């Protein structure tokens, strides 16, 4: 009777398991990275580095969506000719989180230069990594078998649902969650005017007093961390679109840049500003994220200021 039951169970389960496996195989290019943290972008980026970019990087870019979306790889590769480059930007890893996320990658990829694209918004919000998240990232980065990540993070429903969402995330640059990385790891947006989210596009830049002190302090700790290791940090200050720029925004940037210079200059790091020209609205996907063309121009414009 037991044998009969087991045979029946197996026969009945086969179409279900087969169906799920077939669906997974059919959509394998969209299969998500192991769920190391609740932040999908971090998971995808860490997994990508483990699989494709583990050998190290001479130039490593870190930061939030400003780094992911606004730092175009072409101008970086053109400027740092012959150097290995990895873009490790991920949503939520702003100024306050760099000291958490950055060292994990810096210690493994051993860069000589760290690029950070940053907006004042990075001084307001971010998604902190819990100790458990950090431990999961480290374990994955050090894992000889990245597939083991799925064994540590066994959440079937998550993978099924994310696989569906990844069809948009991986293929559609007109989606704000776009994660279709180029060879270096950047994901440049291309949100056409008719697909813009009005709320995001019209988001008013904050005033300086809204920028958080503790996030500046965390950023300063990261700057110190890099300086102690003789790693040069180059910060690219990302501007808001022209239509939102006014006297108040200029004042915000003036104060913000003064604060950043205060942190970076004594340590030998560099701040590259982009406020010497205007940034037309047409170059943007929303208030602060560039579309691909804007990202290329912004990156090239900033890096052109580097003399060495």
């Amino acid at each position: 009777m037991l044998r009969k039951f087991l045979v029946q169970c197996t026969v009945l389960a086969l179409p279900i398991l087969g169906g799920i496996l077939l669906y997974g195989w059919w959509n394998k290019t969209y299969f998500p990275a192991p769920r190391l943290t609740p932040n999908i972008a971090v998971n995808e980026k860490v997994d990508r580095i483990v699989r494709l970019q583990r050998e190290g990087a001479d130039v490593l870019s870190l930061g939030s969506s400003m780094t992911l979306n606004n730092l175009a790889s072409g101008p970086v590769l053109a400027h740092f000719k012959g150097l290995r480059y990895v873009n490790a930007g991920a949503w939520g890893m702003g100024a306050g989180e760099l000291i958490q996320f950055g060292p994990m990658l810096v210690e493994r990829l051993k860069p000589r230069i760290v690029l950070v694209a940053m907006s004042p918004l990075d001084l307001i919000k971010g998604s902190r990594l819990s100790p458990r998240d950090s431990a999961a990232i480290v374990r994955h980065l050090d894992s000889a078998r990245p597939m083991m990540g799925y064994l540590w993070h066994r959440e079937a429903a998550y993978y099924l649902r994310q696989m569906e969402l990844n069809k948009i995330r991986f293929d559609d640059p007109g989606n704000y969650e776009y994660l279709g990385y180029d060879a270096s790891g950047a994901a440049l947006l291309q949100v056409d005017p008719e697909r813009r989210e009005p709320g995001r596009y019209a988001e008013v830049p904050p005033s300086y007093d809204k920028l958080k002190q503790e996030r500046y302090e965390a950023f300063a700790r990261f700057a110190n961390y890099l300086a102690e290791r003789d790693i040069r940090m180059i910060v690219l200050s990302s501007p808001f679109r022209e239509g939102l720029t006014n006297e108040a925004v200029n004042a915000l940037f003036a104060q913000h840049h003064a604060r950043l210079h205060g942190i970076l200059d004594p340590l030998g790091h560099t701040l590259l500003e982009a406020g010497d020209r205007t940034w037309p609205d047409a170059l943007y996907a929303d208030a602060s994220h560039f579309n691909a063309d804007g990202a290329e121009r912004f990156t090239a414009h900033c890096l052109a200021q580097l003399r060495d």
Partner: protein
Amino acid sequence: MLFNSIDFAVFLPLVFLLYWTVFNRSLRLQNAFLLVVSAVFYGWWDWRYLGLVFISAAIDYVVAISLDGTSDEKRRRWLLTLSMVANLGMLGFFKYCDFFITSFNDAFTFMGMPIGLRTLNIVLPVGISFYTFQTMSYTIDVYRKQIKASHDPIAFSAYILFFPQLVAGPIERAGQFLPQFHQHRTFDLAMARDGLRQILWGLFKKVVIADNCAPIVNSIYGDIDHASGSAIVLATVLFAFQVYGDFSGYSDIAIGSARLLGFSLMRNFAYPYFSRDIAEFWRRWHISLSTWFRDYLYIPLGGSRGGKWMAMRNSLIIFTVSGFWHGAAWNFVLWGLINGLYFIPLVWTDKTRQHMEIVAKGRTFPTLSELGRMLITFMLVCTFYVIFRSQGLGGMYTAFSGILSASLFTIPSMLLTKPVAITLGASALMFLFEWSARERAYGLMLDPRIPAWGRYGIYYGLVLIIVAFAPMAGGEFIYFQF
């Protein structure tokens, strides 16, 4: 380990296979294996708290044997007191300590004499409210000489730790359940098939209903200050579906898993939302707890033997204690108290037992009167849920203020969204199944007249719905926190 996790999906078949193929040679082996896998199951969550379960089991094992071995009433009472103090002491410390400290602080601060006692931030061990009640009932039954003490520590420990019902019940009675550990189990095909079916039904209720309701309910109750009255009503109705899907789903998986291993657990839910009054609702909701309170609190307090006044007083006491059992917060106490107040008129008018049979028995549809009674009872239950779900007394006041405002007559913006449509559609499906199966043990116990292809079509359909609509973050079971 959660029932709705991949871990359990691997664990249960593995246990099943080993149990029936390797460890079925003797009763002792079967029990020892169950004990080990139950410890693994519980330790998967946090092995440090495993010691507590064993301490609770050891105390009651020794106390019960001592109770059996003496006829000295004074000594027997002392032994019973020892067990009660140990079990309730553990429960009190882990579950209520911080609550009392906070309440003392609040009370003294209110009187202008802040004392600033520090809370201990104690983590509540999963299932402590359930297994302490189960061990206590065993000792009380031995004390009452209703059952004999077990002299087999392995069988007794396996009975306390039995993994399908360890963390959230049903709270089994030793008289019904313990003898099953003293009998060698043999594989029963019909029982195993039935168990599997009940697991599927439980998973559907948990994963599709409860887990999809949760984010909607959380988003509205999490921002209750800005929610309209109609949105709060919607969230409360969805919470009613959530809590039912969650807890009855858990019970179905527990009962089904036990059946796979050759055990019969007591029924914990009997279609409570088809009740025609509050008394019937409480006879059909969390039956193992309601009957526990009846047998070990209501009846010892005098039950209804002292007339209506005593029956009303005792009803009020058990409902209040039941509220406190659910959570260490004043809104749970108030929830229990109000349940008691709803119940009292039925005691006064001798109508607590007017609906003993399931509604519309032998008929397809209820009468209009029955339908009206069911709807009114459901609405009353939903008012309890506002208290149950709110964050503290302040949150409760805000929720009721919102419901009683003009915004009650607006259409909640969420109503026409996809998640709400999914949850309402799935809930309708659940109630349709449960209505058609209401004279049987659980919703997926299908009418035997349905042909095999129809039954398998339904099973595959449910699997498909689970796969398609399981939300990304499968939540823990609500009753784990109790």
